[in-house]
């Protein structure tokens, strides 16, 4: 991948400040450079990034580091919160007109996915809101665009209004309105032709359609892969038409989708839907908070942070930390940790959420199989109390018995014991490392999950 997630980016900087109780200005400055690059790599417009960084910097400096967080996590938390705020806190709904039909105009550049999205939106309105929309084929320029919408209409068994490609889009829109009233459609979706925002003639045509139909929603359809130019596009469309929201398409790709932030920031209108696949039902309400994490490319650290705060019992964690240091970790602790970590969600996701997990030896590319965890639990539970406390007791015949009792094989039992030993070794190393760094404030630090 060409892109590095923010979490990875922050590694280098984090190393230097691990174990500090407070984030100082220099730390923040260094981290902000990484945040900036991460956002730029995600295609967030550089002007938007600049302002954002300034805001976050101010907030992050001098903030007390929560006991359960490392300074790095702390900064990420602030970044994520600000980003979510920027994207708009809550989901927004699609307009319903007092006087039906509600008119929605779809606008955007060529190839953004207006026609496909029009079909998807019609399907969504019928399925989720029990509406009866009329789709209007007003793209008379691109060859077969009308045919495309008609085909979609046929697939959905929904009416499509078209007058061929010889009638002006403004007239098509006008006549469609009359038709919709006559047939008692409560929504009218106007699919317009893709156009460049600098094409005055075509932009003017949109203004005329707007005047003729007074739409309740003008939705800008934006390709999620759009780069820095998203700002110019959104700005022009908004200036000339006054858009009421945006739909982000092709979000099922591997793009970070920084365009979402750019669009939101310059138009101050919500992103209402996201296109997430080629199928007609692949349209989802847009979740700003999920998008923030995606753009940062760091898994869902905020969720992890929240989960860690609620799920890890402070006292037990302290006890565990002591055990780790003294290296007398038992299989019971192991089981308990397992349960605790599992209660937070799927393991590989947790690993993804961990900034730094990637850097720890032996943890990179670790494949966590949930089923495997079940086996591990069964194995540990088949051990006697004494065995759990003193793993060195486990000789061949005991192992055989455990395998039988847990319904696994001796190989699996052996593997687990080996892994357990390795884990102990690793923990010793890590706790040694931390001690080396001097005073550690706030019991947990970066070591919330001895399991990892």
């Amino acid at each position: 991948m060409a892109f590095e997630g923010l979490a990875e980016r922050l590694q280098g900087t984090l190393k230097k400040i691990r174990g500090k109780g407070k984030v100082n200005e220099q730390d923040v400055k260094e981290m902000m450079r990484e945040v900036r690059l991460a956002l730029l790599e995600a295609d967030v417009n550089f002007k938007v990034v600049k302002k954002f960084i300034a805001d976050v910097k101010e907030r992050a400096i001098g903030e007390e580091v929560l006991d359960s967080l490392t300074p790095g996590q702390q900064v990420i938390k602030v970044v994520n919160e600000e980003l979510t705020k920027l994207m708009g806190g809550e989901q927004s709904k699609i307009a319903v007109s007092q006087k039906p039909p509600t008119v929605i105009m779809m606008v955007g550049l060529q190839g953004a996915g207006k026609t496909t999205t029009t079909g998807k939106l019609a399907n969504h309105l019928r399925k989720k809101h029990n509406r009866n929309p009329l789709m209007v084929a007003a793209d008379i320029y691109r060859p077969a665009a009308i045919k495309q919408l008609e085909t979609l209409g046929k697939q959905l068994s929904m009416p499509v209004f078209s007058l061929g490609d010889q009638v002006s889009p403004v007239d098509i829109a006008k006549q469609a309105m009359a038709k919709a009233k006559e047939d008692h459609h409560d929504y009218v979706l106007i699919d317009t032709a893709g156009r460049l925002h600098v094409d005055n003639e075509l932009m003017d045509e949109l203004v005329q359609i707007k005047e003729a139909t007074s739409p309740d929603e003008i939705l800008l359809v934006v390709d999620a892969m759009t780069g820095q130019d998203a700002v110019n596009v959104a700005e022009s469309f908004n200036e000339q038409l006054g858009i009421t929201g945006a739909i982000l398409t092709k979000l099922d790709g591997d793009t970070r989708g920084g365009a979402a932030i750019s669009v939101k920031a310059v138009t101050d209108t919500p992103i209402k839907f996201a296109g997430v696949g080629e199928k007609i039902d692949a349209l989802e309400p847009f979740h700003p908070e999920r998008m923030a994490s995606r753009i940062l490319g760091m898994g869902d650290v905020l969720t992890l942070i929240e989960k860690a705060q609620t799920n890890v019992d402070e006292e037990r964690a302290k006890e565990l930390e002591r055990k780790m240091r003294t290296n007398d970790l038992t299989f019971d602790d192991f089981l308990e940790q397992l349960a605790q970590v599992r209660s937070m969600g799927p393991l590989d996701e947790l690993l993804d959420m961990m900034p730094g997990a990637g850097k720890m030896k032996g943890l990179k590319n670790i494949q966590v199989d949930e089923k495997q965890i079940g086996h591990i639990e069964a194995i540990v539970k088949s051990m006697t109390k004494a065995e759990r406390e003193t793993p060195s007791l486990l000789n061949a015949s005991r192992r055989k018995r455990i395998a039988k009792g847990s319904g696994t094989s001796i190989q699996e039992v052996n593997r687990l014991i080996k892994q357990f030993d390795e884990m102990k070794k690793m923990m010793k190393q890590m706790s040694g490392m931390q001690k080396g760094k001097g005073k550690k404030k706030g019991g947990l630090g970066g070591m919330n999950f001895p399991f990892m």
Partner: protein
Amino acid sequence: MSFFKKLKEKFTDQTDTVTEKFRDGLSKTRDSFVGAMNDLVKDYRKVDEEFFEELEEILISADVGVNTVMDLIDDLKDEARTRNISDAKEIQPVISEKLAELLQKTDEETKLNMQENELTVILFVGVNGVGKTTTIGKLAHKFKGEGKRVVMAAGDTFRAGAIEQLEVWGERVGVDVIKQQAGSDPAAVMYDAIRSAKSKKADVLLCDTAGRLQNKVNLMNELEKVKRVLTREVPDAPHEVLLVLDATTGQNAMSQAKTFGKSTDVSGIVLTKLDGTAKGGIVLAIRHELDIPVKLVGLGEGMDDLQEFEADQYVHGLFADVLEEVEEAAEE
């Protein structure tokens, strides 16, 4: 200013209209880009960290891509140090020079690989909505104008209306379109098309495919199959695999080029929609990181608005204003 002179000399051989097209098509790009650069030079008298940071931003705003920008900035810093440049005005030509160097790395062929007196098969791939079908239509028009016999294969059997879209182009240009039902196997369409092209003794077969996001593994496999079918029928086909990229696309274009490159051995890039604002930076990044040449550029909506990519002209279009200023300065 030998660099600019060199550039200029190269144009004397080229027709003015083509150069003109590039200029017009790129005027938006140039305005925003060069404008920003001029502002930069005005704002900062001295070449310091801040100057470079700002420059970095300008390049990034043109979608050049962070890695390429970093490399470029490092280069420039070295250059500034060795040449002992501290005045912002003096470094401007160095910046232009470096950018051109990236694009002009070699005089490598950016021409399409056309077979003499034999069938040339060109496969078009890319994500959804970049303009594959439109590009094929325009290219068919171009070949037709050169007196070639052209066949188009409607390999996008998935998207509603895609086959019809190509058919409209076929009628416009006067070229046969080989098609099957919507929803049929694209590889089967290709088989029909290549058979038909051979029996008609066509010069060029242009193969359309459905747009697909590069992270959809099964769709990428389907593309490999399409390519295999072509190779089976004509051993060295496809002679070109052109990845169509939307110039408005940001950093994801790199991922597209990488993944499509892996599954179909992309031999060149068609950069479309270059007639909007702020773009072209992606060309630098692609050249820099993947070394896939840009072969064609889409500069407008008209049938004739598909041009062969000329790095010189591209740079010329991008820096026309700077060029004029430099000339004026030289005359004084």
